[in-house]
């Protein structure tokens, strides 16, 4: 089943073109890696799918389960099952992680026509997932990401991903700022969420992450479009030869 269908997408910021005629099709159960040099438009793509304001879509479509995603508010997209793991998760002082998780989860459940979770149900669920990600109770009591290390922030993203049970996860450079141990924990958390109903788009610079999260497909982005697609072996090729060959191709 096709989850995400992007056709001839064109996106600009301040009348500068960032994405130029991008196509991408993602089915349930698949893991797609998007690689590419800095400035190729990878993060912009993730922001546009999630609905971040400030981008102008000048052409093309993004369909999610056949519905026009671009017509939806960011919170509606979240409720439909789109989840963006941020490259730079923000710090929110004064809002405890626990309160934030609960508010967000209940907002999504409400939008999906489901009732709020009871406190014991919610706590059980959070503690279960938090435990598997080495997230301590103390972290859950602190302000969202306040005083968290880079690795802790990324683990907190994965925690949310597990709690909200999205059908499409976009991981924007989830490996940036992680040491090898943190990377293992994060990757194993993500792998645990792979399922036939769920798709993932893994955005990264480096092949390294793809040792841990093995993709079904690899796409190379350059200058705002996908210039080459292939199997996981393409990532190895990139590691060996670099992105330079695609810069000219685009």
């Amino acid at each position: 089943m096709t989850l995400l269908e992007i056709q001839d997408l064109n996106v600009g910021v301040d009348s500068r073109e960032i994405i130029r005629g991008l196509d991408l099709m993602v089915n349930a159960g698949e893991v797609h890696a998007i690689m590419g040099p800095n400035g190729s438009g990878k993060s912009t793509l993730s922001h546009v799918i999630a609905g971040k304001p400030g981008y102008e879509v000048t052409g093309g479509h993004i369909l999610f389960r056949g519905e026009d995603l671009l017509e939806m508010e960011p919170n509606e997209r979240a409720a439909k099952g789109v989840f963006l793991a941020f490259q730079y998760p923000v710090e929110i002082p004064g809002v405890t992680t626990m309160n934030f998780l609960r508010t967000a989860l209940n907002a999504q459940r409400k939008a999906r026509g489901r009732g709020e979770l009871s406190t014991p149900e919610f706590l059980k669920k959070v503690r279960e997932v938090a435990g598997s990600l080495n997230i301590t109770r103390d972290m859950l009591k602190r302000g969202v990401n306040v005083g968290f290390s880079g690795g802790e922030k990324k683990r907190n993203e994965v925690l949310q991903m597990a709690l909200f049970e999205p059908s499409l996860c976009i991981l924007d450079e989830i490996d940036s700022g992680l040491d090898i141990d943190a990377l293992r924990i994060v990757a194993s958390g993500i792998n645990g969420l792979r399922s036939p109903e769920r798709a993932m788009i893994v955005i990264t610079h480096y092949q390294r992450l793809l040792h841990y999260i093995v993709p079904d497909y690899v796409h190379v982005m350059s200058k705002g479009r996908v210039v080459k697609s292939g199997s996981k072996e393409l990532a190895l090729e990139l590691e060996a030869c670099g992105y330079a060959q695609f810069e000219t191709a685009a």
Partner: protein
Amino acid sequence: MTQVLAKADAGCATSNFLASALERLPGAGLVPHIRARAFEAYARAGLPHRRMEAWRYTDLRALIGEVLPLAPRPDAAALARAKASARRVAVDQAVKLVLVDGIFAPELSDLGELKNELHVQSLREVLENSATGAMAGLVLSTTDDAVIALNAAMASDGLVISIAEGNTIRRPIQIVQVATGSSVSAFTRSYLQLDKGAHATVVQSFISAEGASGYQANDVLIALAGDEASLSHLRIAADAADAVNISSGIIAVGTRAKLDLFSMTCSGSINRYQGFVTLGGEGSKLSANGVNLVKDKLHADTTIVVDHAVPHCTSRQKFRAVVDDCGRSVFQGRIVVRPVAQKTVASLSTRALLLSDQAAADNKPELEISADDVTCSHGATSGALDNNLVFYLRARGLSEMDAQMLLIKAFIGESIEEIFADNLRDFVTAQAEHWLQERL
């Protein structure tokens, strides 16, 4: 009496006003003379204006222009309206003392309760029963501030509360000041004395009864927290949308005594709270915090002057303002450290959140440090909500409004969480949330 009390432009006032008001103001013996002197002091200075540093952002001559005539004594209908409004802001478990249009209303107050622990009289009662004028000092104006001088001249009533040595009053004492009239003013003046080791919480709520509009409230609270005493004082101004409220707090804190001060302004047209705190005993501690919730055309000014007069005192201040529409929030925080006040620790943080393009915030921290072995810091910021935070929350399923609400609550929470007592913190939080809901 439709004539105004004092024209602003000239800054002078005709003493006829005082003369006509005096008949209705309590106090015999020396009292009328002291009132007349205070009135002269006011008349010389006139309403404060922007060329005076302390009133730079709140130019009363421009903002209110004139002082309105004294409100009439509330009749039965006014008291009934006041009662209904007072009920809505009642703090759970509080001993309630109600002033209506500047006059103490015993029939609306819980006077009989706690009479063993708490000594309460109305200012009127004290001044009238003091034939010799021994209590005349209660209307003595000790500062050169014109609005305080005017209050001394015109105060029609107030409360005189004392708590004896070592007594702890567990229930909050709530002074509810209700305005029922229109285009009139009320002058109230209260005294609060905590003797050595006494503990109390005093909440002051300024509200309006249904139908009240365009009134002016001028209140002065003079408090003394004796040695080792502990006073929590909350002031919440929720006046009618077109009302003026000028309140002053003059509070002295004794040796190893503690003062927790919290001020919230959430409605009205012009609001100024000026708190003058003297840390006059070694080892005394002040925690002063507050929130200005400003929308429509409200001008809300919170000015705190802390005088570190002796060594080893601590003051911590945290003020937050949320400003929407064409509102303006002013925060002035002046910290004076006297030459003898070594080992002073003082901090001041003031932040404003601007929610509209027309919203304005003025933050003025002022440190006057004359001692060398002190730790003093201050910080002031103002800005809009961070769009990255709003987007993060929206991407997690919160609507834009809910995301903003959560962030604003967290922002003011930084100040509200400093309120020591759980029930009062909840009370203030509920009022703030009500304000936020109304904003939508």
